[in-house]
Each structure stands twice: as structure tokens, then as C-alpha cells.
């Protein structure tokens, strides 16, 4: 039976937007509610659709409330799980946050609770993807002296890896571009900014053509490729383990895996 009080909150896809939606749920005491990012709410869903306007102040109040009732790890788990962009993750997080506010004690580690365990598991896979990107980003030196990398991660991890690359590559200009989500981060020797690029039509992200890349770039890729081959021990070969560590979907931008 359809409940005529069902409400569907639609937000802009940002974390602040999601937190604002959570704010509305509490503010309006909504009982039968679900949250979807714009474009993901299916028309077949019954209920009243209400668009949420992102409000940083409301978002901040929710975040402060969460902070008071969570450990640092529990808090970052919420953000990590959000960045998974998994279908329905907003509604899982909403239930989690409702449980958190209702409980007298900190619920971060109540792994016997389904929602807590689920959020923990999703956050863990996002963390794994973050770590993979810190490993698998391959910078290529462009003619203009930028170090340029393209990625297509499973989850939206650019916001999570920015700090790592900034502290590590403090003396070189670099860009890491998410081709699927069509945005990137750019470090200009001072700050890291979010950018959107219009890539040339003939640009092939898996090749380092001399039109765009520095002359020595291919030499270093060759040296790295050779090194990778030389360091292998054939009598210990174990491709199953190899692919478990470096799943094939990541090979596209790994110069050592190109033939």
C-alpha cells in the first residue's frame, strides 16, 4: 500500500547537499522519507518529490552534531561511504545517522547492527580505492612541464587523495583528472584547486604522444616498463595473486602493464 505521506528529497549530489537533506528530515520530522541525488530519483517512486537547496549552515549543524556523537574514525566513515556514490547509500547513511542521534552512547563500533556494519564495509572499500589511486596514479610530464595523470576510479576519491599528493609532490605542478566524473585536481605549487578540462578531440589518454608530452617522457616509461620486467622472478609466477593485487580494470593507465 502506498503511504500518501511518503516524501522523496532530491539534492544536488554534494556532501553539503546530503547533510542539508538530513537536516530537513529532522526539521520537518519526516517519517516516510528517502533521499536521492538529482537525476537518480526514479519517476516510478510514489510520493511527493521535494527539492532540497544546499545550505552550508544547515549542513554544518548536522556535521557538528555527528561530530559530537562519533569518534574521528566513525565520522570519516560517513564521508567515505557517501563518496561511494552507491545506489541508496544516502538512505543507508540516513538510517545510520538517525540511529546515532537516538542512541545515548557512541554507536561507531556496534558491528552487530546491520547499518553500522554496512557503512563500515562500504567505507572500507572506498578507503581501498583511495589507497589504490595513491598507488596507481602515473604522472606523465607534459611539454608545458606539468605532471599529468588520468584515472577512472570506482568511487569518487579525488577529494580524499588531494592531501596525499600535495604533501608528496610539493615542488612540481600536477593534475590528476577523473575522466569518468569529468573533473580533476590541480596543484599550482601553492594550493590544490578543482578544475574541469576540455580535452582535445584527438587526445588519447592511454598514449603519450609527442604532441602533448615531453621528449624524455617515453624514455622514462620504457625504463620503468623494463624495470618492472627485470624485477619479476619467473619461477615464482603467480598470476592469480598478481591480478588480485592489480585488477585488470586498472591496467589501462599503468605504463608497466602496457605492451
Amino acid at each position, binding site marked *: 500500500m502506498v503511504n500518501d505521506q511518503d516524501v522523496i528529497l532530491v539534492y544536488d549530489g554534494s556532501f553539503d547537499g546530503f547533510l542539508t537533506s538530513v537536516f530537513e528530515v529532522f526539521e520537518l520530522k519526516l517519517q516516510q522519507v528517502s533521499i536521492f541525488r538529482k537525476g537518480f530519483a526514479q519517476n516510478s517512486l510514489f510520493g511527493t518529490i521535494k527539492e532540497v537547496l544546499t545550505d552550508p549552515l544547515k549542513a554544518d549543524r548536522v556535521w557538528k552534531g555527528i561530530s559530537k556523537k562519533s569518534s574521528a574514525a566513525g565520522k570519516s566513515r560517513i564521508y567515505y561511504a557517501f563518496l561511494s556514490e552507491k545506489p541508496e547509500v544516502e538512505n543507508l547513511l540516513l538510517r545510520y545517522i538517525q540511529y546515532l542521534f537516538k542512541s545515548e552512547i557512541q554507536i561507531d563500533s556496534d558491528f552487530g547492527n546491520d547499518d553500522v556494519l554496512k557503512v563500515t564495509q562500504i567505507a572500507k572499500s572506498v578507503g581501498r580505492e583511495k589507497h589504490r589511486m595513491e598507488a596507481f596514479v602515473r604522472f606523465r610530464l607534459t611539454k608545458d612541464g606539468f605532471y599529468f595523470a588520468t584515472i577512472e576510479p570506482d568511487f569518487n576519491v579525488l577529494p580524499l587523495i588531494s592531501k596525499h599528493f600535495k604533501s608528496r609532490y610539493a615542488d612540481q605542478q600536477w593534475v590528476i583528472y577523473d575522466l569518468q566524473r569529468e573533473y580533476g585536481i590541480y596543484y599550482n605549487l601553492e594550493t590544490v584547486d578543482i578544475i574541469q578540462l576540455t580535452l582535445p578531440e584527438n587526445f588519447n589518454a592511454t598514449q603519450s604522444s609527442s604532441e602533448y608530452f615531453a621528449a624524455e617522457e617515453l624514455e622514462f616509461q620504457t625504463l620503468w616498463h623494463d624495470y618492472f620486467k627485470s624485477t619479476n622472478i619467473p619461477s615464482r609466477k603467480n598470476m592469480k595473486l598478481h591480478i588480485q*593485487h592489480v585488477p585488470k580494470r586498472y591496467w589501462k593507465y599503468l605504463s608497466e602493464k602496457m605492451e
Partner: protein
Amino acid sequence: MSFERTQEKLKILADAAKYDVSCSSSGSNRSNATKGLGDATGMGICHSYTEDGRCVSLLKILLTNHCIFDCAYCVTRKSNDIKRAAFQVQEVVDLTINFYRRNYIEGLFLSSGIFKSADYTMERLVAVAKKLRLEENFNGYIHLKSIPGASDELMKEAGLYADRLSVNIEIPTKEGLKLLAPDKNREDFIKPMIKVKNEIIQYNSEKKLIKSTPKFAPAGQSTQMIIGASGESDQQIMWTSDYFYKKFELKRVYYSGYIPISNDNRLPQLGTAVPMLRENRLYQTDWLMRFYGFDVHEILNNEHPNLDLDVDPKLGWALRNLGHFPVDVNKADKHMLARIPGLGMKSVHKIIQARRFRSLNWEHLQRMGVALNRAKYFLVCASNDFERRDLTGAQLKSLILQNSTSKYQKILSPQMNLFG
């Protein structure tokens, strides 16, 4: 840098360095405070994995594969007829920097054949590290090999620039070393190790008084032993390992299954399989010692000098000590939880946290990722549904083996045992 010449050298000197299994790049605390290149805080990163499944984290090369020694187990030994090459100091610096800038590596692992003398070789290793730190403002990870017999002064200088230092003791027993590496003696390995250990102790005490004391090998020392080259028992290997962990405060001991590289009749013949399963069991034992609170004598002793190949060492211990089980996961302390087969330390921590909210049952444990096919015989939880408790160790073992598949099945099958 001439591309072709560097390319040729890199092939030779990376190939010769690959038998050193250490590839750790964690445990340091060198931050990029100078806004230079690189940062060695936090955990290490494996930037790739070889086809044999090993982590590629560092540019691991020899400075040269010329060597005055003739150790039977070593591919670089004097009498081996192979191509020789040597890098210039600057070439290693350039490769490291350019690989690092592209995010290929966490840093450099530099070892070397010994040419002319120990000090002459060590001096050149130190020169590379010094140049990277002082001229290139490089804060990535540097692992230098301590050359056996190198002077105290050079070891001290090495520690100022390197994050980690290591000497490979290679052969677990004195007798084995005498047989396979007659030019080397154990004291030469140990001397630089003692020097580094003492410098680290001194650094730690000075650091308390003077904050600006320069770092000394912040990621500590490690060593490596070759497994299966000199007929040693698992007990001999792990007791040696335990001794080195305690006596020299090593961060890691690595175990490297011997890869046949010559027809020397003192060694396993060419074509002999690499003892990978045994190597794996030794690492599991090493983990039990370092993280699970086991004493090495509980696992390996005169009655039980070798590890079981068909079950992991923790399960093996549990089967010999059934009196300690079953353990109640809702009540037991961390120490006992860690001894339940199938429970890793992560699960142990999860259980301790989660049981504050409710008593845990089978379903909770399963969803948290506990390997119940082994664990279920050794624990009780909030359920009346228990496994049989009246079985002997041998019966339990065959029950567990029937219900699990080992990734080493091929090695464990009866046909292979004929050769093993």
C-alpha cells in the same frame, strides 16, 4: 644520461637485485617539511605488483654486480659467468628522482656487490643517499644495504641519510654459512648491525633532550634469510629470527625461499621448486610472534622442530593444545581471542568493540569476516548451536581439511610429496 646505456645497466642491475625480498617502505617519519620532493610518513604504498605477486614499492637495484666474494647461493658470485655493470652515482640519483616524480615508487632500495673493499662499496652507497637528501631535497624512502665489514664511521653516516638499513644474514646457521660462503664470517654481518642498533638507541635518548637531533635510520633495521638452501629446520630458522628480533631490535626479518641458480652440488639442483608454501608458513609464524603474542618456543621446539605444511601454524598449535578451547568470544580477553584459529587481529578488535553492544552469535561473527570453517571448533558464542567437542586433534584436523580448499592444493597433493 645516455638512455641506451642506462637502459642496459638497469636491466642487469635490477635483475640481480630482485632476490632481496624486502620491499617495505613504511615505518619512517620523514615529512616533506622543506617543500621539496617526497614524503615518507604514514604507511608504505605498493605502486605495482610483479607477476609473482610481490609488491613493487621501491626502485630496487644494485649499484654494481661486480663482487669479490664467491657465495654459492648468490647469482652475483665472483665465479658466475654473467654480464657485469655498474651505475654512476648520478645515474642512480636521476632514475630515483624521475621515477618518484611520476609516482612509480616510494623511494630507493640500493644494494651492491662488494668491489675492492667493504668500505669502498659502502662509501658509494652513502654518496647516493647523501646526494638525494642534500642536493635534490628528496624526502622519499631510502633503504641502504649495510655492507658486511663496513666501518662504524660509514655506518653512522649511512644512518643519517637512510630510512632503513639492512644486512642479510642469508644462511640461518653458522655451519651452513661456512659451507656456502667460506669467505664470509658471521661477525662481519653483525658488526654493522650492532653499530646501527646503538646509534638508534643514542638517537632516541638525545632526541628527548634536543629536538633538532638529526634523524637516524627512522625505519630501523631488517635482515633476510634464505630458506631451504642449507638443510636447516624451521626451528633453527625461527629461533635465529627470534634472537635477531630481540637482540638487535630488528623491525623485520624476511624469509626468501631459495631459487636454484647454479649446479653447485652443495645446493638444491636447478629446477627444484621454490619452497613457497614453507616460506608462507614461516611468515605466518613470524606474524604470530610479532602481533599475536606467541612465544616462538610454543610453536617450534625439540618435539616439534618443523611446521605443518597442511595447516597454518596457529591451527597447528591449537590442535596440539585443545585444553585451552573452546574460548568464549563474548568474555575472553584479547590474548585468548588472538589464539583462536581463523581469527585475525582485525576481527579480534572488532569483536572486542562490538560485544559491548550485544552478545555476538554465529551470524554476527560470520558477517564481521571471521573464517568460521576453522574458528567454529574452537569457540562458543551466544548460541546453543555448537560444534562437537569430543573430537581428537587428528579428527578435527581431517574434518577441517575436508571442508576447506587450500590455495596450495597442488603442492600438497600426494604426487608432489614424492619430490618434496
